[in-house]
């Protein structure tokens, strides 16, 4: 495993945003697939409802709403932010990096680094490791890790393997240099052999002549090459073996046990997978909160969203030792442990705002 330790930097704020539009699976899909099919899907995956972005609303709009709220709440001087990383697989444009659009919208200074990372389920861990590394090796004092996905925009409307699973969401995490902060530890792995396990094959430059026509795939679902394909069994096999293995190895390496952590926040992949992970890491369900019943699988945002769902309403504030694990598309996975003052985690925002300055101008 690739292991990193960061001193003197803390996570000093987390805000999440979801679209206002909430969709209850049974209401929308029972007429399409039958009540029993939808009920069975909910029983296995845990998803009962989720929030869906408007057609005009992008992942960056959700991340922007979260970032704006966080910067205002923490009363942060915008000129003091030296880095903005945006982790997404649903960017605004093919070119440029959406991080640059967010840098503009947030009014950050030129003395700032901004770029995107293309990762999904593991992206929060990878994003934290990257921003911490860059802060550690530079004079940057404050950084914004923005994440978000509107996965539903890339899914065929009647693809039973994924059309009911995902939710749209975005999040902002503030990192600050702070001498004496408890160390943050990360561990990461990649297995590129599984790059086809979760894929949208067309829309970039490999399959440039791909047809937009929907065809019947081997798994019995209609989709075009521009839609998400997910090999459920391969992803399941990967998730229940590699994620708990990394968590367990990480705890051995850190010389810690389940008792040392207040919470294990898991990427909300599918509740059946989460149950396997709890069993295989021996974390009790009281320490492994679930948010996907109301938000679905929100890709890169599912870790901060689950934190905000758990702590955002401030019933249980204090310094908590949190273990987080993201795993999925890539295939890519990682864990991070950090002590977070849960008073710095804000309630989840609902918004239907979107940026109107980003349209194409043919001048």
């Amino acid at each position: 495993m690739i292991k990193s330790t960061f001193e003197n930097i803390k996570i000093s704020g987390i805000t999440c945003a979801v679209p206002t539009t909430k969709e209850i699976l049974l209401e929308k899909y029972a007429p399409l697939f039958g009540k029993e099919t939808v009920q069975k899907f909910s029983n296995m995956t845990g998803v009962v409802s989720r929030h869906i972005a408007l057609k005009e609303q992008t992942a960056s709009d959700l991340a922007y709403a979260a970032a704006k709220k966080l910067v205002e709440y923490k009363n942060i001087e915008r000129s003091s932010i030296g880095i903005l990383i945006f982790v997404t697989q649903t960017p605004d444009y093919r070119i440029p990096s959406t991080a640059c659009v967010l840098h503009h919208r947030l009014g950050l200074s030129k003395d700032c680094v901004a770029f995107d990372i293309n990762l999904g389920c593991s992206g929060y861990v990878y994003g934290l490791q990257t921003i911490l590394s860059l802060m550690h090796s530079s004079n940057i004092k404050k950084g914004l890790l923005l994440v978000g996905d509107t996965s539903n925009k890339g899914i065929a409307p009647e693809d039973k393997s994924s059309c009911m699973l995902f939710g749209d969401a975005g999040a902002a995490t503030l990192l600050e240099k702070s001498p004496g902060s408890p160390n943050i530890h990360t561990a990461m792995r990649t297995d590129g052999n599984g790059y086809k396990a979760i894929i949208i094959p067309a829309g970039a430059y490999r399959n440039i002549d791909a047809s937009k026509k929907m065809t019947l795939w081997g798994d019995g679902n209609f989709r075009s090459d521009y839609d998400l394909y997910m090999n459920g069994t391969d992803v399941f096999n990967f998730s229940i073996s590699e994620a708990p293995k990394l968590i367990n190895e990480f705890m051995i390496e850190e010389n810690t046990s389940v008792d040392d952590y207040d919470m294990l926040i898991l990427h909300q992949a599918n509740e059946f997978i989460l149950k396997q992970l709890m069993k295989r890491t021996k974390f009790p369900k009281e320490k492994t909160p679930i948010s996907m019943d109301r938000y679905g699988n929100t890709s890169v945002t599912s870790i901060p969203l689950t934190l905000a769902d758990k702590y955002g309403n401030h019933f249980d504030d204090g310094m908590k030792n949190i273990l987080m694990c993201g795993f999925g598309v890539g295939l890519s996975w990682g864990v991070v442990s950090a002590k977070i003052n849960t008073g710095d985690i804000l309630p989840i925002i609902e918004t239907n705002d979107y940026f109107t300055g980003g349209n194409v101008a043919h001048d």
Partner: protein
Amino acid sequence: MTNREKLALLENMLELEEGELNEEIKLSELENWNSMAKLSLIVLMDDEFGKKLSGEQIRRFETIKDILNFME
């Protein structure tokens, strides 16, 4: 493990009564053989037999007997 014991594991997994399954039953005719059952079988193979079961292997299973043979 005897075949009866293996069948009992599968009956339990598929939420069937004891004795409902036999080796000759075709998976395509089994109502409970859905995506949830396939994922549960992956877990069962790993937990009980320490065996990795791929999606491709699952697609090759035609009868209950094929699953029992894989358990060996």
